[in-house]
């Protein structure tokens, strides 16, 4: 007996999907995905930033702290600003585990999360992203500054150009952007412009309102957040609620008014733990 493989494949495919019906609100999920992307892009376009990064760059004051480069401020720092600066200094240049969660005010976990570890001394680490609207996981591996991207179920990784850090702008639709990058976050936390108060032992609250007026739009970036320190007075958690509120200029996006809020939570732990990452076996190099 001779079998035609193409005919069998046709019948096999037909059998495979026979009776398949949409069981989930696929259009609703796609709409939510679209709204998230739109909100991120709108904020980026309006404020001239990528996600929250630029907004955070205008954030939180650690005003008045003058320390030589690379030297932590005195442990006896008195003001909340100085205490926070001390915690930031203690959290830099050391390996850590991290978890980044992105969502909105109603559900701070709505968009998904990414977990991993990073050692800034060797530019080595890994990051696994899991969005909430699909089963796919995205992987980033950094080995001595070389960045490899992978995907769940995939057999081949791709090596991309890298600046020695994760590609934070890629994760979770770009909403987290570099505000999820601890190095950028620390840098932002140092910059002047916000009010910091101590809420409890090892807990700080910050608020910032930064007006912007550029060729695309005008409005205000509002930032409200909390920083929690661990028992070693290093950064354990930073939660930032970022609201981009304003209006596009006439001729830009139809003069649309916008008011978008994202919530990004960055959790850091296991400082000083060695980070070991295996190089993927099958790699194609990006051209």
């Amino acid at each position, binding site marked *: 007996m001779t079998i035609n*493989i193409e005919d069998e494949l046709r019948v096999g495919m037909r059998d495979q999907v026979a009776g398949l019906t949409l069981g989930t609100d696929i259009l609703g999920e796609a709409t939510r995905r679209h709204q998230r992307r739109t909100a991120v892009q709108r904020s980026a376009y309006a404020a001239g930033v990528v996600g929250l990064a630029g907004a955070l760059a205008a954030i939180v004051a650690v005003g008045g702290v003058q320390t030589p480069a690379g030297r932590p401020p005195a442990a006896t720092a008195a003001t909340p600003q100085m205490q926070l600066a001390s915690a930031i200094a203690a959290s830099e240049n050391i390996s850590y585990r991290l978890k980044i969660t992105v969502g909105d005010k109603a559900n701070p976990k709505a968009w998904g999360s990414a977990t991993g570890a990073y050692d800034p001394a060797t530019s080595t680490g890994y990051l696994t992203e899991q969005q909430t609207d699909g089963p796919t996981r995205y992987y980033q591996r950094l080995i001595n500054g070389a960045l490899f991207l992978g995907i769940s179920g995939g057999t081949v990784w791709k090596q991309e150009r890298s600046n020695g850090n994760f590609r934070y702008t890629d994760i979770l639709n770009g909403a987290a952007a570099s505000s999820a990058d601890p190095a950028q976050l620390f840098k932002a936390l140092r910059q002047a412009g916000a009010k910091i108060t101590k809420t409890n032992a090892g807990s700080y609250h910050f608020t910032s309102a930064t007006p912007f007026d550029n060729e695309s739009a005008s409005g205000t970036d509002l930032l409200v957040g909390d920083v929690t320190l661990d028992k070693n007075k290093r950064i354990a958690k930073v939660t930032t609620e970022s609201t981009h509120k304003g209006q596009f200029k006439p001729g830009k996006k139809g003069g649309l008014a916008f008011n978008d809020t994202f919530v990004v939570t960055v959790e850091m732990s296991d400082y000083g733990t060695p980070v070991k990452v295996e190089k993927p076996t099958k790699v194609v190099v990006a051209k």
Partner: protein
Amino acid sequence: MRWKRRFEGLDALVAERGNALLATAVLLTGSRPAGEDLLQAALERLMRHWHKVRGDKEGYLRRTMYHLAVDQWRSRKRRPEVLVFVEPPGRSDDTDALHLRQALVQALAKLPPRQRAVLVLRYWEQLSEAEAAETLGCSIGTIKSTASRGLTRLREVTAAWARDGAPVWNGAGK
């Protein structure tokens, strides 16, 4: 209401053609969850380009799904290449043909994305080589060679049937 005005007709399209689109997405990805993810991504892309897409919205969705499935690296919403284990055949009996088809579909999911997409276009969508080439934006020669490689892989993966005295394959593709 605002959504309905903005994407007028999209809910009707999904209601009427959603099952068929999902079927294609499942064949392209190898699993239902990944297929739903792919269809969602294509719908999101259609929304993004709604005002630029003239005419056949379903055609746009299908083309987008194929491109997303194939172009898994350039697109951030990459599709998973589902790893499957092709079950060896059981005892030869009347269910041989059924097992064979299941194995073929499992093996299809194991192919590289481009080979899988070409085979789905050719043998599920029943497109000609020229139509498949247009859909994927490549030459007819590429479609021919890719389909040939895909079919060869399927024959290799399911060769256990032939070795175990099951039916013999009929050679090269059409």
